[in-house]
């Protein structure tokens, strides 16, 4: 049976494409869900400061835009682990960027999945594409949304820059492959 509701918190540092990653999910989702919602959280500093966004996909009405604990948390910057470790529901999963990871996680009731998005993107020549790898991994693991909907959104967003589009699609597919290989749910 298809689940009726998915929510995810994506967190990282301003400039990494944290809000954009959430936007790609929410822009793709109306094809599959009756209601979708995206809300950012940021401070006055645009780059270099922590930021996060919440995405909710549901066939039922979405009232509260804010979730205390989500089904999943995507930690795109390792420094955010401690702040967001508690934001996952028991039984949910954390996608954790391994680059620069110094902290240890304490939760035992959630699955922590290491993610080498920055390294994967850097191998492709540009670590700024790490968010596309993370996006692919989240989609591959959660199966919250069909990958073709995301690919269509990526095409719409970057369609005017063929090189960037091609690069992003490649990284998304790479992440998707890594995510699908994970046996979580």
């Amino acid at each position: 049976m298809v689940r009726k509701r998915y929510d995810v918190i994506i967190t990282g540092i301003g400039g990494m494409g944290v809000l954009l990653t959430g936007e790609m999910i929410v822009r793709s989702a109306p094809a599959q869900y009756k209601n979708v919602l995206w809300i950012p959280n940021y401070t006055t500093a645009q780059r270099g400061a922590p930021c996060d966004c919440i995405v909710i996909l549901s066939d039922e009405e979405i009232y509260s835009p804010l979730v205390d604990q989500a089904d999943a948390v995507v930690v795109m910057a390792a420094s955010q682990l401690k702040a967001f470790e508690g934001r996952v529901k028991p039984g949910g999963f954390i996608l954790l960027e391994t680059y620069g990871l110094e902290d240890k996680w304490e939760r035992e009731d959630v699955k922590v999945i290491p993610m080498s998005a920055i390294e994967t993107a850097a191998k492709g020549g540009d670590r700024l594409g790490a968010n596309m790898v993370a996006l692919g991994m989240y989609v591959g693991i959660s199966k919250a949304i069909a990958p073709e909907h995301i690919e269509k959104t990526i095409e719409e967003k970057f369609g005017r820059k063929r090189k960037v589009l091609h690069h992003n699609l490649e990284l998304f597919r790479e992440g998707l492959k890594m995510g699908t290989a994970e046996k979580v749910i």
Partner: protein
Amino acid sequence: MAERLLIDGNEAIARGAIYGDCKYFFGYPITPQNEIPEFMSRELPKIGGVYVQSESEAASVYMVYVGALAGARVMTSTSSPGFSLMQEGISYIAEAEVPAVIVNVMRMGPGIGTGGQHGQTDYRQVTKGGGHGAYHCIVLAPYSSQECFDYMQLAFHLADKYRVLVLVLTDFIIGRMAEVVELRKLGFEPLPEKDWALKGKAFKGGRRRCYVSAAFSYGGVPPRYYQHMAEVYQKIRDTEVRYETYRDEDAVLLLLAYGSSARMAKRAADMARAEGCRVGLFRPVTLWPFPEDALCQAARRVGKVLVVEDSPGELVEDVKFAVQGKVPVHLLGIWGRYTPQGDIMTGGSGIIYPEKILQEIRGLI
């Protein structure tokens, strides 16, 4: 079917204004409402409109004033500190009875506040004046992107209908939260011609006639002025009160919230119902005129009220006034905020999550 777009509350406000036939926008940038002027500066010139970035909020409010005097549909948008700067002009707009729309996307706190931080701390200022002279503005409080879009059209209609200033009050959450909006054109009853507008003698049979006075220079405030305004305000109170109720028929506790807090409260009501607690919600949509009578009836039927607002307690004053001491009124204010991650700060000072409201509900039932 109308086009559907995924847009945030700010863009919904801007698009709604254009659907409401607004062609002129005068504004000054301030977070968290910059998406409104950004959209307007790009789109208004395309439809023969004008976007002007003023030198300050104090200037933009006067640009709105004179644009409205000329009979056009004009607006500005700002956030709390900018709204404070506009108070003098707002008072003048109220005095001259010219119709205009101002959007306040609230920040939290007095002084400069914080641009990226949510809060509902302008309630008293928008509903009780802010400027001098005992005037009223109609205040609409949307709680979704769709309502942002729809209420902007309604705001321009009400402004023209009563020749008053209409304020649309949102906050960081409503402004930056993205949802799917149906771009529908709303229909309203026909409006009287703006025969008072300053359009030049040619439009008035070559005669010079003054309908609008920006100064009570000779002899002070005319004796009939406040009587006339009282009649206008009474008419608005009689016809324009708007509110929403949710699952209140059999409730034993009535939550009371507007704007973004109402979203959290609605979720909390559902969570309480799932636990077997019969909880409902009353959401004022017009903060002025405040739905006093409807609230009083609902509160007396239910028997107990919990006000939820992200503020030290402003809405709660109107609620207490409305129920006239006949029903106990509790408040979950800004101290109900928490950060789920504990002490670790991530750039905010927390939010009143539905879980906190549920906890408060359990304590009251």
